[in-house]
């Protein structure tokens, strides 16, 4: 199974490289086209305008918050999925991964009927004095919803790869489960957790559809960078392109940083079965 390419023989026929190159061009060309469209003399004023900076700040803050929420909710989920077999586990995994393939606008509608004023939980929340619709909390909820699977998938993979040998040894030495989790399991899968968190952050940063459907769009409150781009495009194409490039730069920096280390394990072997 693990025949790694350490022998110098890659086993890749030459024609594969040609198609791989086409694939790379397919992804890179639109980016190049966008860069070519940037109004460079105006670039700095465009991305440092008040509305742009507000949107960027909001995006970074909400993405950080939703990444934290993903860690809090996702780590236990990944542990349960990776460690303890139980009936319905595959079903649970499928549902946890669902936001990966769901159009974000569908996620937004689902959240609306859950946390909205007329929603499943919305009425009780409103009685408790909590209003989620049109608030920054709604943005964080939408981002967490779409980003959670990224963390769960990464961490579950790391947990499965690490195995439970060390945990078993720790337990035989008298460590209680919570101690094993804190002192053995988590340190062991820290790289997987880190890469999962980075992916969640990147996904949150790009969240658009669910936010638009569920949270609305108000400067400084719910209008994140993707929503600002969408709106700017109506009147000022130059601003939209400049902001798009800014978003791409942030995303590339985030994803690039997390994938510098090739040893990071990121996905379960059976995640997509």
């Amino acid at each position, binding site marked *: 199974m693990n025949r790694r390419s350490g022998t110098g023989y890659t086993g890749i026929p030459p024609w594969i490289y040609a198609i791989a190159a086409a694939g790379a061009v397919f992804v890179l060309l639109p980016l190049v086209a966008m860069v070519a469209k940037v109004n460079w003399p105006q670039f700095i004023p465009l991305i440092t305008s008040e509305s742009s900076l507000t949107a960027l700040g909001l995006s970074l803050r909400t993405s950080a918050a939703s990444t934290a929420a993903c860690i809090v909710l996702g780590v236990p989920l990944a542990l349960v999925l990776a460690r303890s077999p139980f009936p319905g586990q595959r079903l649970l995994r499928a549902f946890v991964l669902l936001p990966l393939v769901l159009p974000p606008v569908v996620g937004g509608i689902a959240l609306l009927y859950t946390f909205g004023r007329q929603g499943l939980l919305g009425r009780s929340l409103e009685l408790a004095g909590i209003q989620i619709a049109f608030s920054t909390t709604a943005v964080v909820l939408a981002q967490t919803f779409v980003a959670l699977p990224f963390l769960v998938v990464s961490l579950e993979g790391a947990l499965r790869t690490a195995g439970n040998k060390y945990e078993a040894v720790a337990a035989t030495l008298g460590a209680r489960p919570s101690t094993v989790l804190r002192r053995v399991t988590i340190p062991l899968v820290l790289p997987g957790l880190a890469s999962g968190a980075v992916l969640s952050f990147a996904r949150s940063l790009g969240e658009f559809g669910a936010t638009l459907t569920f949270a*609305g769009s108000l400067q400084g409150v719910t209008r994140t960078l993707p929503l600002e781009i*969408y709106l700017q495009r109506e*009147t000022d194409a130059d601003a939209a392109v400049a902001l798009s490039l800014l978003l791409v730069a942030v995303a590339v920096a985030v994803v690039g940083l997390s994938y510098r280390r090739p040893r990071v394990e990121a996905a379960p072997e059976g995640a997509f079965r």
Partner: protein
Amino acid sequence: MSDPRKHVTALLVAGALTAVLTGCASGTPAVTGSSSAAASASATPALTGTVTVFAAASLKSTFTKLASDFEAKNPGTKVTLNFAGSSDLVTQITQGAPADVFASADTKNMTKLTDAKLVDGAPVNFATNVLEIAVPPSNPASISAFADLAKPGVKVVVCAPQVPCGAATEKVEKATGTTLAPVSEESSVTDVLGKVTSGEADAGLVYVTDVKTAGDKVRGIPFPESDQAVNTYPIATVGTSKNKELAAAFVATVTGSEGQKVLGDAGFGAP
């Protein structure tokens, strides 16, 4: 089989990037299979071929009806419709999308196309639309006039000033001296309506025609100040059209008595 985890990792990265990079993609319509129009007499010209109509999203129900009427009346013709925000449509046409007719929800976007020398002849105004307050059927905030929208605690959703319905909202605000504190400024009138029909907002400012289309899901509250911001809808044949005769015939249907009746029934005002 080399390390399968690497593949999944790569997939995830690709997925994350796609997700991040996916802004908003508007669909471009099908191709125009235009053929030579066999025009004979001027009274009842035998029209054939396909006419592609790019129309503002607010024209969806009326133009869908007008298109099927047009096809029924002119056998051998086909009307392909593409609905989107007017500014999206202008962008698509200037980028080379095969449109024969363009119907805009405001004069500003039509001017953009005229400035790009992509309009054949002069645009004709064919309808007007005014704002109306839309509230959920139960009217939870007891809205009865425009000034009520500025009451504290009322959750009002409006269009952002960058889009036509938002520009109209701003005009009304100025004319009435009322300053709204909306909980959200949406980028399309459909999103405003969605927030009202779902009961999230107490009130939204949309067009009269949107309230009519929404049926009993919302209640419309007209207000006299709406005549401060009348939106005019112009229509024109696109300069690059390959079937200008058919395009002109469709424009004539919209501006003629038949089109005016359908538009009037939907709540549009006369130009």
